[in-house]
C-alpha cells in the first residue's frame, strides 16, 4: 500500500535546543497511527513542522507523493493536512455550526458579490455547507449544540468540535494533538469510537499524539515513540509498548 506521509531526516532547533532531530516517519494510507513520547520530546513540534507552522531546518515531508516541505500552513491544508491543537483553538465567538462551516471555506465557494446579494449560488452553497456540517457534527454528537457559541461548550465537547472543524477541510491526513486530554475514561472511550468511525467512514489517515495509553493501545495500529526529538522506537503498537526502552523512557512501571 502506498504511503500517505513520508518524512525523512526532519529536524528543527530553537536556539540551542535541537527539538526534533533526524525524524523519520512513514504512514500508510488509511492508517491510524500514534505518536507518543515523554513531555517535551518534540511531538507537538513535529505536528507544527508537518503543518508548516515551523519551517524545518533539515529534512523533507512528502504527502501522498507531493513534496510539502517548507510550504505555508495554508498551502499544506489545501494539500490535505488538517489538525487539532494541544491547547484548544476554536473560533470562540462563532457558533458551533459556523466553526465547522469555516472548515468548508476552500471547498465550497461563491463570490463576495454573491455573498452580499444572496444570489442563488449563495443559497445553494450555504445549504450544502449546512447539511454537510450537520453531518459531521452528528458524528461527534454535537448536532444538538449547533447553535451554541463555541466558547460555551464544555471542555470535552470543545475538543470534539476541533476535530469536526478539521474534518470539514476534507483532509487526507488528520493530525490530532492529545484529543483525549481532560476527558474522563467514559468520554475517552466514546472518542475512540468516533475516531475509528471517522477513519472508516471518511477514509482518512489519522496521526495522533496521546498520553492516554488506553486510547493508544485501543485504536492505534502503529506507533512511533519520540524521545529528545529523536525516534526511540517505531512499529506495531503492541511491540512498541513492550519495548523495554519505551517502558523506561515513557511508560514507567
Amino acid at each position: 500500500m502506498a504511503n500517505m506521509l513520508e518524512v525523512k531526516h526532519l529536524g528543527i532547533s530553537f536556539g540551542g535546543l535541537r527539538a526534533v532531530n533526524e525524524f523519520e516517519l512513514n504512514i500508510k494510507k488509511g492508517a491510524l497511527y500514534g505518536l507518543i513520547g515523554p513531555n517535551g520530546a518534540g511531538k507537538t513540534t513535529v505536528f507544527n513542522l508537518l503543518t508548516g507552522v515551523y519551517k524545518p531546518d533539515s529534512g523533507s515531508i512528502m504527502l501522498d507523493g507531493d513534496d510539502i516541505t517548507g510550504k505555508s500552513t495554508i498551502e499544506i491544508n489545501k494539500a490535505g493536512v488538517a489538525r487539532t491543537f494541544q491547547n484548544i483553538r476554536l473560533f470562540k465567538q462563532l457558533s458551533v455550526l459556523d466553526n465547522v462551516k469555516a472548515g468548508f471555506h476552500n471547498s465550497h465557494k461563491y463570490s463576495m458579490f454573491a455573498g452580499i446579494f444572496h444570489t442563488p449560488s449563495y443559497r445553494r452553497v450555504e445549504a450544502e455547507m449546512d447539511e454537510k456540517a450537520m453531518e459531521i457534527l452528528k458524528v461527534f454528537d454535537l448536532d444538538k449544540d449547533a447553535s451554541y457559541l463555541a466558547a460555551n461548550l464544555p471542555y470535552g465537547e470543545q475538543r470534539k468540535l476541533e476535530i469536526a472543524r478539521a474534518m470539514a477541510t476534507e483532509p487526507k491526513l488528520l493530525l490530532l494533538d492529545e484529543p483525549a486530554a481532560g476527558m474522563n475514561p467514559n468520554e475517552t472511550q466514546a472518542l475512540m469510537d468516533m475516531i475509528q468511525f471517522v477513519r472508516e467512514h471518511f477514509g482518512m489517515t489519522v496521526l495522533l499524539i496521546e498520553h492516554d495509553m488506553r486510547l493508544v493501545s485501543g485504536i492505534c495500529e502503529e506507533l512511533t515513540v519520540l524521545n529528545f526529538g529523536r525516534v526511540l522506537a517505531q512499529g506495531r503498537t503492541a511491540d512498541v509498548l513492550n519495548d523495554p526502552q519505551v517502558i523506561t523512557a515513557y511508560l514507567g512501571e
Partner: protein
Amino acid sequence: MTVMIEKMKKKTRTNNLINYAIVIAAFAVIQVMKSTGNLSSLLNGLLIPVCSYIILAVSLNLVVGISGELSLGHAGFMSVGAFASAFFSKSMLDAIPFVPLRFGLAIVIGAAAAGVIGVLIGIPVLRLRGDYLAIVTLAFGEIIKNVITIFYIGIDGNGIHVSMKDKMSLHLEEGGNVILNGPQGISGTPKNATFLVGVLLVLITLFIVQNLINSRDGRAIMSIRDNRIAAESIGLNVTKYKLMAFTVSAALAGVAGALYAHNLSSLVASKFDFNLSILALVFVVLGGIGSIRGSIIAAVVLTALPEMLRFLSDYRMLIYAIVLIVMMLLNWSPKALELRERYLGRFFKKTAKEGK
C-alpha cells in the same frame, strides 16, 4: 436538524431586519415631524451628520468588531472620501449640472478613493498585529491629514494646477478657481446631501456589512479574528480576509465622508484628525464591539448628546465627559452587567448561551 439551522438563520435575519426597520422607522418619524413643522432647526441640521457618523461607525465596526483589529486612523479614510468627492463635485459643478448624477458619481468616487487608499495602506499594515497595527493606523490617519493639508489645487482655462507651497504658486489666470486650498480645504461644496440620501446610504451600508458578515467571507474574517493560527490551519488566507475587511470598511468610511462633505460648505482636513478617529471608536465600543445596532445607537446618541447638553453652557463638555465615562462603566463593567442582568434580565440577555 434543519429546523434548528432554519431557526438560527431566522434569528439572524430578524436581527438584521430589525436594524433596517429601526432606520426606516426613524426616517418616517422625522418625515412626519418635518411635515407637521415639529422638527427643530437643530435636529434638522443634525440629520445628515448623524447619517454619516452611523456609516462611519458601522464601517469601523467591520474592522474593530468583526475583523478584530484596532484601527485608530479611520477618520483618514473618511477624509479621503470627503475630499475626493468634494473635489469632484466642485470641479464638475458646471460640467455636470444634473445633481443626482453628479452627487451619485461623487459618492462612488469618494468610496473608491478611500477604498484604494485602504488597500494601499492595508497591504503593508496588516502584517502587523494588535497594538502595533493600531499605532500604524493612527500614523496613517495623521499622514493623510498632513498630506491633504499641503496641497493647493486650482483649475483655470489651462487645466489643473497643483502646488505644494501656497495658493500663489498655482499661478492661476484670471477667473481661475482654487478648489483645494491647503489647510483651508475645500469650501463651497454644493450642499447636495439630503436626509433621504443619507438614510439610503445608511441602509446600503447596513446591507453590505450585515450580508458580508453572514457570508462565507464574513465567516472567514471572524474566524481569523478569533484564532489566527487555527484559521490558517484550515486554509484561510489571513492577509486576504483582513485586507478585505479593511478595504470594504475604508470604502464605506469614504461614503460617510462624501455624505459629510456635501452637507457642509467648509471642509478642512484637520476635522478628520485623531479625535474623530477616536470618536468613531467610541461609537463602536460604547455600542458593543461587533454589534451593528449598538454602533448605530451609539453614533446617534453621542452626536446628539453634546447638542442636547447645550443648556448647561460652560459645563457642557465636562458633563459630556462624565456621561461618557458613566455610560462606559454601565455598559462594560462586569459588576454593572451582572446587576443589569439580574434586574433587567429579560431585556438584556448578555450571557445567552446561543450565538447570533
